[in-house]
């Protein structure tokens, strides 16, 4: 296996960050009683830390070469992520208008949040696969 490029290392770091957030969220959902939504605040803090670290690393790595292959792989990831978002949003609209399944605004926000996390994970995994396949 060839050594990882900076972009691949960043993707693995993002995947790890997302996994931590998702595991924490799932764990909190299991153990928090009704009305105890402290984990939502903690989740937001985790996401904030995650986004801050990512921004900082990106900002400090201005001299790292990002070439045409990196951009090509990024566009593949974005395409997959967009498809997931599109399908998810269509499903939400169908649920909303056809079946009236949306119980409340917070339920809707929750679903959209999960959809965004899923789209992010799909983008990262697809890009990692593309890097390994050399795209």
């Amino acid at each position, binding site marked *: 296996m*060839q050594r990882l490029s900076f972009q691949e290392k960043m993707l693995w770091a993002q995947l790890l960050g997302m996994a931590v957030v998702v595991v924490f969220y799932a764990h909190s959902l299991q153990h928090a009683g009704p009305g105890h939504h402290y984990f939502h605040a903690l989740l937001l803090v985790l996401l904030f830390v995650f986004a801050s670290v990512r921004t900082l690393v990106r900002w400090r790595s201005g001299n790292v070469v990002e*070439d*045409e*292959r*990196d951009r090509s792989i990024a566009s593949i990831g974005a395409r997959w992520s967009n498809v997931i978002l599109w399908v998810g949003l269509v499903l939400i609209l169908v649920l909303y208008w056809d079946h009236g399944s949306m119980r409340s605004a917070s339920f809707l926000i929750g679903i959209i949040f999960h959809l965004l996390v899923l789209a992010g994970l799909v983008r990262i995994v697809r890009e990692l696969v593309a890097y390994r396949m*050399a*795209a």
Partner: protein
Amino acid sequence: MIRNRIRELRGARSMTQQELADLISVTRQTVNAIEGDKYSPSLEVAFRIAGVFGVPLEQVFRYE
């Protein structure tokens, strides 16, 4: 399928993948992917590679 002779040309000049990558402004991983015929570079990068070796483009790449 685009085949290339980059590894051979690089070897003849005792040049590493990293040195070639630096000269054509791409990552070492991209040079490795191009050499392994796993990634087809843009025309611009292809011309830069040929320029580094001082040979015409068709002596570096061929279409099969």
